[in-house]
């Protein structure tokens, strides 16, 4: 094992679709989180509902963990296939918990299997089979070295929303089974040693939702599409208590047009979809651009083209997102790299949409959207920016598209006495009526593009670019989005220290800052999960800097730290 991951331990839970593998991954993460560990977990699944092979992988340590590692300390296998698939990545002393029914057929592997009759225990406890990994949760809890009482307390919390009693009963049976077998326990951090500040285990999609809520979200519209669906489902549930209007209409085109209608009427609204859904929305995105109706879009990339590798990750749509929608109009595109940034960038995007009355896109991907991290979100740190509002006392007529110095025309909404509020897909005059007049056409475009000046001033106040690692190194690695996790883990495993540069604001692009961060590099390396090095192309377009060394991955899997470090080391 490499030095970088020596204090990081990794658990995988594998089984078929329908076995509750994703939930098990979250449950194991929450157990570790309750013990004060920092976790990162990802979920790998095919596009089907029953069968196939799913696994959750949780890496944890006493310090922050930004990616899950391939090498396993623990495997929980609900079926035989899981053991065969993960056998090659087991560490020598790994603990392997296997459903009892499959132990005999796995004899040829000569592995020290720990048999857990998960199915039988669930039957005896009258628990649904989808909960059967909870007995393995108990067995694993025993090996961690905590007492049954301690584990039961944690389990009651972890399973609070999904039938705590029955799950705690399963956990107890799994724990006792291990206890009776007299197996050794590891030494773990015990509950009494837990630091005061334990975070929550949350994925990128929920963090985006929380960011929107922090910035005053009032409505959310979405059509289910992997990997964006969990934001819609989370808000559909959480929204009820907050008076949020959440709608799932007939298709993505209805989604964005409904949202634009809501925004025109004054509601702070967001929509969410995958890259394919944004493709459907693109004419309406252009409508948002010309009509200056504020809108924020969560776009979570999966591997395309077309339906592509539907449940797997990719960073293949950066350039698409920068150009989506016909015609020219200012937009805001931000690409968070971890769960915490999902929260911050989502809040910022909603605020930018209203401050500058333009479409704002939060660009995520499957690996970021659906991976969980232990974090403490500072939910009070972000508030709503309501944008520039019109004075409609009737002294002068309200013009929705008033030409202003900063390009921002004051907002009013229908229902305001003395104001006639017009929005239109046509190029228009100040009143909002269609125009073909050359002067007016030019003037209105100039007005819209002047809004970018404000955004350029915002560069100083927002995280457009972040740097990590050895700031003085002449080896610089540039990356964006979810690659952050593997990149910063890989940073610990390099043959010599490097500086790491993450680009968050893609449009507008903080050209001077990027230039200065890349200045003086002797070895410049671009890391992206796509085929065509789209960030490198953007950097060249904006700064003139050409990056020759590229680590590109387009197998629909996220980077893993150790493998990425090996690739970077080739250039160092």
């Amino acid at each position, binding site marked *: 094992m490499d030095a970088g991951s020596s204090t990081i331990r990794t658990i995988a839970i594998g089984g078929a679709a329908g076995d509750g593998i994703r939930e098990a991954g979250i449950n194991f993460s929450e157990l570790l989180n309750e013990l004060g560990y920092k976790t990162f977990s990802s979920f790998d699944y095919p596009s089907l509902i029953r069968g196939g092979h799913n696994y959750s992988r949780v890496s944890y340590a006493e310090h922050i963990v930004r990616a899950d590692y391939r090498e396993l300390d623990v495997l929980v296998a609900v079926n035989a296939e899981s053991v065969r698939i993960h056998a090659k990545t087991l560490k020598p002393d790994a603990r392997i918990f296997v459903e009892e029914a499959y132990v005999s057929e796995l004899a040829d592997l000569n592995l020290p299997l720990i048999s857990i009759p998960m199915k039988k225990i669930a039957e005896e406890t009258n628990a649904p089979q989808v909960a059967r990994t909870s007995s393995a949760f108990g067995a694993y809890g025993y090996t961690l070295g905590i007492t049954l009482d301690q584990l039961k307390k944690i389990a009651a919390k972890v399973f609070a929303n999904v039938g705590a009693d029955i799950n705690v009963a399963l956990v107890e049976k799994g724990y006792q089974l291990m206890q009776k077998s007299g197996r050794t326990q590891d030494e773990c951090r015990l509950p009494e040693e837990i630091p005061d500040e334990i975070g929550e285990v949350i994925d990128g999609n929920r963090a985006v939702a929380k960011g929107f809520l922090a910035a005053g979200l009032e*409505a959310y*519209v979405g059509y289910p599409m992997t990997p964006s669906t969990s934001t819609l489902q989370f808000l559909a549930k959480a929204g009820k208590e907050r008076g949020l*209007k*959440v*709608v799932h*209409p*007939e*298709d993505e*085109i*209805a*989604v964005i*047009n*409904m*949202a*634009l*209608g*809501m*925004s*025109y*009427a*004054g*509601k702070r*609204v967001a929509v969410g979809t995958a890259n394919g859904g944004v493709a459907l929305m693109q*004419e*309406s995105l252009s*409508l948002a651009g010309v*009509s200056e109706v504020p809108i924020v879009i969560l776009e979570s990339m999966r591997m395309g083209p077309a339906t592509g590798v539907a449940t797997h990750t990719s960073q293949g749509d950066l350039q698409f997102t920068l150009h989506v929608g016909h015609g020219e109009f200012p937009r805001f595109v931000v690409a968070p790299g971890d769960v915490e940034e999902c929260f911050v960038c989502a809040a910022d995007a909603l605020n930018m949409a209203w401050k500058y009355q333009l479409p704002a896109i939060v660009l995520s991907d499957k690996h970021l959207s659906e991976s969980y991290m232990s974090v403490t979100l500072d939910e009070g740190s972000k508030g709503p920016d309501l944008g520039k509002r019109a004075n409609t006392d009737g002294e002068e007529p309200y013009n929705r598209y008033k030409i202003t110095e900063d390009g921002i025309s004051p907002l009013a*909404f*229908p*229902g*305001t*006495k*003395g*104001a*006639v*509020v*017009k*929005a*239109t*897909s*046509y190029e228009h005059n100040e*009143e*909002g*009526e*269609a125009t073909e007049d050359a002067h007016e056409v030019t003037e209105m475009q100039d007005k819209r593009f002047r809004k970018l000046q404000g955004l350029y001033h915002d560069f100083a106040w927002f995280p457009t670019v972040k740097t990590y690692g050895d700031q003085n190194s002449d080896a610089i690695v540039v990356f964006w989005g979810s690659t952050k996790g593997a990149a910063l883990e890989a940073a610990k495993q390099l043959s010599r220290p490097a500086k790491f540069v993450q680009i968050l604001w893609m449009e507008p692009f903080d050209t001077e800052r990027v230039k200065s961060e890349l200045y003086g590099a002797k070895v410049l390396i671009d890391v992206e999960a796509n085929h065509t090095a789209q960030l490198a192309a953007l950097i060249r377009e904006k700064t003139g800097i050409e990056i020759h060394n590229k680590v590109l991955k387009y197998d629909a899997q996220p980077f893993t730290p150790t493998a990425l470090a090996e690739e970077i080391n080739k250039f160092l």
Partner: protein
Amino acid sequence: MSLDLATDTKITWCPGCPNSQILVSFRQAVEEFVADGTMELQNIVAGAGVGCHGKISDYLEVNTFNSLHGRIVPTLTGIKLANPTLEVVGFSGDGDSFSEGFNHITHAARRNTDISLFLHNNQVFALTTGQATSTSTRGFKGGTTPQGSIDEPMNPALIMLAVGATFVARTIASDITKTKEILKAAMLHKGFAFVDIIQPCITFFDTREYYKERVHWLSEKHEKKSLDAAFDAVRGASEKKVPLGIFYQVEKPTFEELV
């Protein structure tokens, strides 16, 4: 003081186009509602799609949202959901709602979103200089169908009844007073109101004489609450007669009430 609902924008419909009659009917309807205190002007929002009909938004000094071709219905749904105190109406065309984006109007009807949709049905794509829409008659010779359209036309009112609209009516633009009354009834209706307005295109598909001979108003005895009676009346259209009037009107919970 009477309201001035005109804007400074020059009207660019063809001289004599029945769209102007629809504009007059709607302005009169709004004037009457505002005058008798039924509605406040600032609460009225008129949306439109893209096509000849869509120009109407530039000719109305009220709140308007001129959306994309085929997408006005979800836009209106969003406006009403965001602020249910608004009176939300939409102008659309047979190309704009029954060709492009046809699914939206069916879903809005089944949701019973509380908006009124006025269909400028001229049975032709006019702004693009004369091609067949989904309501053009079979055999219609247009720019894309020089040998005549091979498709059967849709009957918008029949479709709206089938998918759950709670108010379905038909009128003809040339009867400005009757049209005004039907638009008013639609606006007062709580739920999804659909009005098929026969609006002959005097340039590309002049059906004025055709309809003049065939339109007739439903009798006073027509049972508006009966879906069967509505289907019978709407299906009653034939080569010989085209029924006009309110075919169907029932009250059901609206989308905005249920979200």
